[in-house]
């Protein structure tokens, strides 16, 4: 027979065409198994992709939004409070030689109310001159500026949220008053780019000044200098402002956002790191389910003459094919998760920064997700190659149990030892350096998987004598079947362990943060019975003209006292600090429970006296401050020196806080306008009655609202939860994907058993007995996974807690959280058993004659 001589591409000793052929045969023979394994890989990759997107989108979107406004501006003149500075100063800055282009802006925190709801926004007053800076969000502003005359433009996300339409009307609450405004435009991505997904509304400067009752004031001047003139202009600006405003890079907002979001980003990084590891291991375990059959195939092909190189090539090729296709599905699924789950902009950041829900997906994220899926598939499918070193070559076919399924006692012991070494290593490493907690959390996920084989062997060994004594029990059948399929059983239990580990570690750490912040807010807010603020005033930094309001409230017979409260955000270096000023007469001028250094009573007395501040720990550490020393703060009045009365936690605001009294604040921030009123009721007056009475007084203002202290505390708690929403979303995503992976894996295992179930049926077992046997098997595997995952999860939770407290500065006491643990266990086990019950019931219904259709 003549051989046709033609070149065909080869790989590892096999024709590429043959590799495709072999894989096609495999797909034909094991289609369902490959689909289910691929689904498991896809779910793992979806988790990896989703958390990576969540981890990067926040600052990525801000970068786009800021660049869209700033255009070519290199410098900015920024006010040190929301009261801004005069347009006269802005004009002088713009007229400096060396300034080629400039634009004035007024930023006002407000609330917009539409037919379907309300939202906090930042109203930015602009001039057509902004267009000259060339930002992508402003290109239409020149021609379209006319459309903003007498009205405002809303970003499309806000418009949709409140039900506002172009040429409709809305109510704007600013400076404590309500104004009816015309919505001149609802601007989408095409018009203003990434800003369409933010909370930044736009109006002409004059209109914004009128709405904010800040005539002739601006808060920002963006400056584009002539070539080579930047440093000169910067010096001249500093001379001009004489320490009363900040001269900084135009994109300084990003630096401040990085610092503010850093704890959230670090928390998200920790959670994302653990989730990525869990995702990879889920993919690995899904592939592991196909290993026994691959081991048999390797032995059979080896017997037929395939050499090691060819077998390696074949296994790698199939793993890459499956990994690639499954990863592609996983990326699509992860994108859906990310769009559905990670849409919330943390309110506490939206108050202070122009960030949007616009998701930024870098190519590196896609590549990393693909890499995880393919790598996991490759590693899992490589284990059959170890059999090539065995003698005889078909030894795997003669192992106890189903061929290819065996995990020897020695292997199980070695893996258990590896798990112990990992856990010990993590303990030592984190004790030495807390920043290793991220690596530690990832290592513990690996340890969770390593412990499964030894726990499995121990439990099945213990169950055997028990099951044998139990009359009519299907437990004995279940134990025998689990023993026969050790690799598959370990893979399934491993998935359960990972699901529980991730849920407990991440969920527990998040719960600690929430609990700590709840306690913190109670102390901060509980200084008075009622709070009067502007709506949407989440950090209590929006000032309003008191007018006659204070007097009117004081005159109510049920009122004991009314005290002003003032607050602001102040940029110091890379930190956007939260300034809190309370009246000297306030009993809660300093929350004692938040004091970390200094005597609380003495510190409070000093704050009342004036000339002293309390600063938060991270800020103090950065500047090497201690109680009794002094610190210089950049106020609108210029640099002012204060004594350090105490060092506190950050009161839930990541960059840090500064606490002082209202007398010092009014002098140095050059305003007596309050940002809140603390209203105390006379003894015996109920909160609801008090709120009702004050609300009647405020009715004429429209832009002010009254809350009881518990209501305000609840709002802050919600904001804190919202601020940690990405952590909650990652935690939820991990649980959902893990439960899904577990259900898929168990369904695979049950599907693979149909023929044996039919054989048992032939011998007289009925459907219910077989179903009980399947449920027993699943319950045993879930138990192993739950115990293993829970124990290591609690340890992971403790590690994460320690690291989060150190990096975020949040108060976050560690608590095991039995309720959360039970919920996590119940959720994973419940979802899995519910899913198993159906396919298990269906599999148990396999007709006995299926035995003969093999």
């Amino acid at each position, binding site marked *: 027979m003549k051989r046709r001589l033609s070149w065909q591409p080869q790989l590892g000793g096999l024709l590429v065409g043959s590799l495709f052929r072999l894989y096609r045969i495999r797909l034909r023979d094991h289609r369902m198994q490959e689909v289910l394994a691929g689904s498991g890989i896809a779910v793992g990759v979806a988790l990896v992709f989703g958390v990576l997107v969540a981890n990067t989108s926040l600052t990525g979107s801000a970068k786009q939004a800021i660049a869209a406004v700033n255009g070519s501006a290199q410098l900015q003149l920024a006010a040190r409070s929301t009261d801004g500075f005069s347009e006269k100063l802005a004009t002088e800055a713009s007229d400096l030689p060396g300034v080629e282009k400039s634009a004035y802006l007024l930023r006002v925190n407000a609330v917009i109310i539409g037919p379907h709801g309300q939202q906090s926004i930042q109203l930015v007053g602009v001039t057509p001159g902004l267009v000259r800076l060339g930002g992508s969000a402003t290109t239409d502003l020149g021609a379209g500026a006319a459309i903003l005359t007498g009205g405002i433009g809303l970003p499309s996300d806000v418009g949709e949220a409140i039900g506002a339409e172009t040429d409709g009307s809305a109510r704007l609450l600013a400076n404590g008053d309500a104004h009816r405004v015309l919505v001149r435009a609802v601007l989408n991505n095409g018009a203003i780019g990434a800003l369409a997904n933010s909370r930044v509304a736009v109006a002409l400067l004059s209109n914004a000044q009128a709405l904010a009752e800040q005539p002739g004031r601006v808060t920002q001047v963006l400056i584009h200098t002539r070539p080579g003139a930047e440093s000169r202009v910067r010096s001249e600006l500093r001379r001009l402002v004489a320490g009363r405003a900040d001269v900084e890079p135009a994109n300084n907002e990003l630096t401040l956002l990085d610092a503010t979001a850093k704890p959230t980003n670090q928390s998200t990084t920790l959670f994302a790191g653990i989730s990525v590891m869990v995702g990879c291991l889920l993919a690995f375990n899904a592939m592991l389910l196909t290993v026994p059959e691959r081991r048999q195939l390797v032995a059979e092909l080896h017997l037929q003459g395939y050499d090691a190189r060819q077998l390696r090539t074949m296994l790698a090729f199939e793993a890459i094919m499956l990994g690639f296709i499954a990863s592609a599905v996983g990326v699509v699924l992860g994108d859906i998760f990310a769009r559905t789950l990670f849409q919330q902009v943390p309110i506490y950041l939206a108050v202070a920064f122009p960030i949007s829900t616009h998701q930024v997906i870098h190519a590196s994220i896609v590549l990393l997700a693909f890499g995880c899926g393919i790598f996991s598939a490759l590693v899992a499918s490589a284990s059959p190659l170890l059999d090539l070193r065995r003698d005889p070559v078909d030894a795997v076919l003669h*192992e106890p149990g*189903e061929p290819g399924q065996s995990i020897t006692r020695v292997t199980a012991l070695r893996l258990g030892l590896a798990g112990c070494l990992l856990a010990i290593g993590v303990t030592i490493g984190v004790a030495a350096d807390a920043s290793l907690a991220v690596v530690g959390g990832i290592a513990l996920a690996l340890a969770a998987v390593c412990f499964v084989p030894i726990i499995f062997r121990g439990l099945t060994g213990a169950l055997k004598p028990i099951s*044998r004594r139990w*009359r009519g029990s299907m437990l*004995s059948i279940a134990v025998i079947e689990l023993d026969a399929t050790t690799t598959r059983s370990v893979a399934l239990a491993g998935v359960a362990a990972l699901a529980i580990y991730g849920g407990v570690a991440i969920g527990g750490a998040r719960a600690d943060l929430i609990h700590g912040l709840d306690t913190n807010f109670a102390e901060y807010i509980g200084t008075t019975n009622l709070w009067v603020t502007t709506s949407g005033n989440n950090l209590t930094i929006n000032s309003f003209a008191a007018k006659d309001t204070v007097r009117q409230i004081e005159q109510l017979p049920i009122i004991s006292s009314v005290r002003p409260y003032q607050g602001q955000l102040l940029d110091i270096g890379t930190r956007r600090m939260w300034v809190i000023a309370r009246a000297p007469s306030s009993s809660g001028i300093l929350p004692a429970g938040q004091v970390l250094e200094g005597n609380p009573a003495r510190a409070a007395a000093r704050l009342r006296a004036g000339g002293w501040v309390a600063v938060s720990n991270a800020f103090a550490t950065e500047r090497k401050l201690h109680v009794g020393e002094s610190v210089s703060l950049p106020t609108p009045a210029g640099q002012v020196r204060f004594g350090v009365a105490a060092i506190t936690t950050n009161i839930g605001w990541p960059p840090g806080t500064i606490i002082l009294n209202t007398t010092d604040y009014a002098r140095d921030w050059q305003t007596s306008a309050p940002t809140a009123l603390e209203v105390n009721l006379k003894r015996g007056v109920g909160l609801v009655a008090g709120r009702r009475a004050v609300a009647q007084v405020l009715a004429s203002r429209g832009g002010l609202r009254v809350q009881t202290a518990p209501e305000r505390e609840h709002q802050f708690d919600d904001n804190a939860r919202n601020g940690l929403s990405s952590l909650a979303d990652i935690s939820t995503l991990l649980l959902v994907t893990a439960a899904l992976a577990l259900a898929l894996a168990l369904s695979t295992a049950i599907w693979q058993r149909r023929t044996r179930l039919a054989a048992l049926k*032939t011998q*007289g077992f*009925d459907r219910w007995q077989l179903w009980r046997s399947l449920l027993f098997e699943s319950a045993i595997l879930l138990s192993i996974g739950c115990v293993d995952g829970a124990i290591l999860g609690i340890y992971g939770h403790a590690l994460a807690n320690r690291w989060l407290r150190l990096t975020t500065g949040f108060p976050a006491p560690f608590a095991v959280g039995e309720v959360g643990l039970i919920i996590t266990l119940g959720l994973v086990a419940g979802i899995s058993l519910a899913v198993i019950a159906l396919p298990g019931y269906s599999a148990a219904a396999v007709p006995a004659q299926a*035995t003969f259709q093999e």
Partner: protein
Amino acid sequence: MSVIELHEVVKHYRAGEDLVRAVDGVSLTVASGEFVALYGPSGSGKTTLLLLAAGLIAPDAGVVRFDGRDVSALPAKNRALYRRRDVGFVFQSFFLMPGGTALDNAAVKLISDGWSMNDAHRAARPWLERVGLGERMGHRPAQLSMGERQRVAIARALVNEPGVLLTDEPTGNLDSARSRETLGLLRDICHERDIPALLVTHDPQATAFVDRVHTLRDGHLSAGLDADMRVVSG
């Protein structure tokens, strides 16, 4: 004394638009202690006849009786009980549980009838000894030869002391020496226990071990071995 009777049983299947007459009016009686072989080409309906005898499927017409009881009319639950208590089944592919020992596999059938595994072990031991595996009870199927695995399957089929033994190509995976051993064992048990035994087979050696031979072709039963089956048989 047990008897299994199939009287004018009919079983048809739909294959697309065609009606396949797998068993077409077959009558067969196997008396106590009788070892009957059923030959036939592939697709002749032998397995279907076995399924009917085991109560795994119900006939479209006709009756299957065991000890005078109409098995074919039983509801599914009662047919399962029939298989559990009265039928011993031996498969070509053994279908042993790879995770269990020979003793576990021999005993497993009794679990379905409410026995504990320990008690079932006690009941299964004599049967394993009877089939010559007294020294191999603790071995797993992977550690047994094909012939030994088949003997475990035979022990499993007998552990419930069935009234009828049904075997589907029990020597299909065995070499000729092991085949003869297995056939001899089945014959001896059939005669010792005085139970009817039906053997579905292609193995030509079986004719030397059975009491009676039938051939099933195109759903119809005839006595003896057809000429072409004799050629196939050797």
